[in-house]
């Protein structure tokens, strides 16, 4: 599992934000103006579909950066 590919998948759930704005250290709730619960649900659905991993809302709540989410997914694969 590659973090750059994960970041692309993550960014794909946004419509307005450019790919360059997504970094491993991005605090996605704070740093991304476009962030909403809708992107959150899309990311959970994307992880389920592409990575075959089910993440709960409380698990994702514990994460801060995109890398945190990446590590969470990796730990459950």
């Amino acid at each position, binding site marked *: 599992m590659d973090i750059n590919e994960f970041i692309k998948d993550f960014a794909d759930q946004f419509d307005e934000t450019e790919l360059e704005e997504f970094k491993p250290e991005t605090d996605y709730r704070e740093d991304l103006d476009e962030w909403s*619960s809708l992107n959150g*649900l*899309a990311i959970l*659905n994307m992880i*389920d*579909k592409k990575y075959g991993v089910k993440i709960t*809302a409380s698990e994702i709540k514990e994460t801060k950066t995109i890398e945190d989410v990446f590590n969470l997914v990796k730990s459950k694969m």
Partner: protein
Amino acid sequence: MQNPFSLEGKTILITGASSGIGKAVAQECAAAGATCIISARNEGRLSATLSSLDGEGHQYLLADLSQAGSIEAIVEQLPKLDGVVSCAGIVETKMLKFTEEDDLLRLFNTNAFSSIRLIRALVQQKKMKKEASIVIISSISGVRCGYLGGSIYGATKGALEGFVKATALELAPQKIRVNTITPGMVETSLLKDSEIDSELLEADKLKYPLKRYGNPEEVGYSAVYLLSDATKWMTGTSLLIDGGYTLN
């Protein structure tokens, strides 16, 4: 004079009765005096529901109603009914762009087609008595509002609302009534076992003017009402029970 809200002397079929709303509907029907025939897929939980019912003479029927081919054979085993409450259903939260053909088929089979096939078979085999009452558990989602990730779920519930209208017309000559109940969020194991964060749930409850989710037995009371002689002049409609949620 008999209490018009009583189900004394009525035989009622309840599907999806092993848990949640279906279980509570069965319990309230039994408490109102009905003889219940309860059905679901899980034998252990279904027999637990059976033993929780007030009164005598209830029976259970182990059946998977989401399988198209098996419904006719199941219906053949049934006596004539005064009422049916179709409660079998599943909830899924998936945004439209992630849904697959499988999700469509599974949700429509379980939530919409199973109810439609059951009622069709009951009508074809003349299992509904004159003046019987048919009740389908629908939802506010897909009928009055929607939730994120609920496009297919909402579509299945909207399908049921549509189904009820023409079916009510067709069955009216026999004085058979067809109605739905559209509940808001109800506290069931579907919710307790879900992956939804409990803080989010508490926040969501505050969106209800009555500041809580519904209890399964409250949907049960609505079902008893629609099954009873008190609603002999109600057909083709839906009973909204949502703590005021859709007022906003």
